[in-house]
C-alpha cells in the first residue's frame, strides 16, 4: 500500500462521513443504516491507519533514516532486517527504493569520474563501510601507477608494470592504512568474478609480496617510496614476483 492508496482511502472515508452526516441530518434512516455499515468498516480502517501511524506515508522514510543505513551495496541486505513495529511493518518493501536513492552530489561524482564502475561488488561494500579510507586507498592506487610509470613507459596488463602497480599499491596502503585494511582492499579488488583466475592469482601474489616487503622496510625504519620501488626491481630480478606476460626488466628497457 503506497502513499497514494492511503490518500484514496482517507478521501473516501471523508466523503462517506460527509454523506452519512448529511443523511443523518435528513433523517433518512435506511440510507443511514447502509452508510453506518460502510462507516464502521471505514472507521476500523481509519483507526488502523491512525495507529499505524504516520505509518505508511512519511514514517517509512523516518524508519529508514533512523536506521542510519546509507544507500550502497550493503544497503538492501541491512535494510530488510531493520526491526519493524506495527506502524512500519511493510516498510521493508520500500527498501529497494530507499537503497537506490543517491544524492545529487554522489550522482555527479559517479557521472564525472570512472571510479564507480571500476569497483568490484566487494569494493563497493567496503566503500560503503569505510568511505574515507577507501578514498585514500583509491588515491594510493593512482600514486602507485605514477610511481611505476617512473620505471615503465606505459601501464599494461599482466606484465611487469602490472606487477609493479600491485606491489607498490600494497606497500603504500600498508604504510598509510595498516596491514589489515590494506589486505581488505586488495582482496576486495580481486574479488571480481569476471576476471580470469590466473590474473587474480598474479595480482594476489604480488599484493602479498608488496605488503610483506613494506612491513620489513617499516620494521627496519627504511620505508620510503623509492625504497619500495627498489625492492620491487630487486624482487622482480630475483623472480619472486609473478608475471604472466613478461616483457623485460626495467633496466633492460634502458630505463632508470
Amino acid at each position: 500500500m503506497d502513499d497514494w492508496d492511503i490518500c484514496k482511502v482517507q478521501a473516501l472515508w471523508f466523503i462517506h462521513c460527509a454523506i452519512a452526516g448529511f443523511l443523518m441530518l435528513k433523517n433518512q434512516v435506511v440510507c443511514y443504516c447502509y452508510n453506518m455499515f460502510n462507516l464502521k468498516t471505514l472507521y476500523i480502517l481509519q483507526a488502523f491507519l491512525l495507529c499505524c501511524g504516520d505509518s505508511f506515508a512519511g514514517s517509512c522514510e523516518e524508519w529508514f533514516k533512523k536506521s542510519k543505513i546509507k544507500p550502497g551495496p550493503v544497503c538492501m541486505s541491512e535494510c530488510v532486517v531493520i526491526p519493524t513495529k506495527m506502524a512500519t511493518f511493510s516498510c521493508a518493501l520500500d527498501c529497494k527504493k530507499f537503497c537506490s536513492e543517491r544524492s545529487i552530489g554522489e550522482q555527479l561524482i559517479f557521472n564525472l569520474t570512472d571510479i564507480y564502475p571500476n569497483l568490484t561488488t566487494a569494493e563497493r561494500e567496503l566503500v560503503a563501510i569505510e568511505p574515507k579510507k577507501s578514498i585514500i586507498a583509491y588515491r594510493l592506487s593512482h600514486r602507485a601507477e605514477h610511481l611505476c610509470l617512473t620505471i615503465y613507459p606505459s601501464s599494461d596488463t599482466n606484465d611487469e608494470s602490472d606487477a609493479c602497480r600491485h606491489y607498490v599499491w600494497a606497500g603504500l596502503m600498508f604504510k598509510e592504512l595498516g596491514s589489515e585494511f590494506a589486505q581488505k582492499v586488495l582482496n576486495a579488488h580481486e574479488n571480481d568474478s569476471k576476471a580470469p583466475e590466473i590474473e587474480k592469482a598474479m595480482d594476489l601474489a604480488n599484493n602479498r609480496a608488496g605488503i610483506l616487503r613494506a612491513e620489513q622496510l617499516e620494521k627496519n625504519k627504511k620505508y620510503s617510496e623509492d625504497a619500495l620501488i627498489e625492492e620491487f626491481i630487486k624482487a622482480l630480478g630475483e623472480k619472486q614476483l609473478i608475471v604472466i606476460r613478461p616483457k623485460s626488466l626495467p633496466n633492460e628497457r634502458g630505463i632508470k
Partner: protein
Amino acid sequence: MKKFKNVILVLTLLGTASYIYAINYVRGETMSVSKAEKKWGKREFGAEQFKSASEANRASMAASLIRNKKQFIGKDRSEIRKLLGDYSGHYVSGMFPTYLIQDAIKIGDEAWQIVFLLDADEKVKDIVVHKNCCYN
C-alpha cells in the same frame, strides 16, 4: 524577460562547458576519431581480425571501431573480452576493457589505448582512444 532568458542560456552553456572540462580533466587525454583516423588510418574493424592483430593493426582499426561503437554499447565487459581477446594497457583498474594500440618503448614516449568505458552496471557506455598513463 529577455535578459533573464539570456542569463539562463549563459549559465547553461557555462555549466555544460564546466561539466565537459571536468570529465576530460578526470579522465585524462583522449583523441577524437578524426585524429585517430589521420594518425593510424581507417582500416575496417573486424572483431576476429582485431583479436589476433598486432598493436599497429589494431590502431588502424581504432577509428572504425569507434565509429561503429553502437554494436558494443550495452555489452557486458566479459563479452568484450570474448569478442576482442585479453586486455592490454590499463585504465584506472583491471575492470575496464583496454587494448593498447600504440605502446611506448621508453619513458616519455606516447602510448595510446582503446578504452571501453563502463557504467555502474559494468556495461559498455562509451569507447574512447585514451592516452595510456594519464588520468587524475
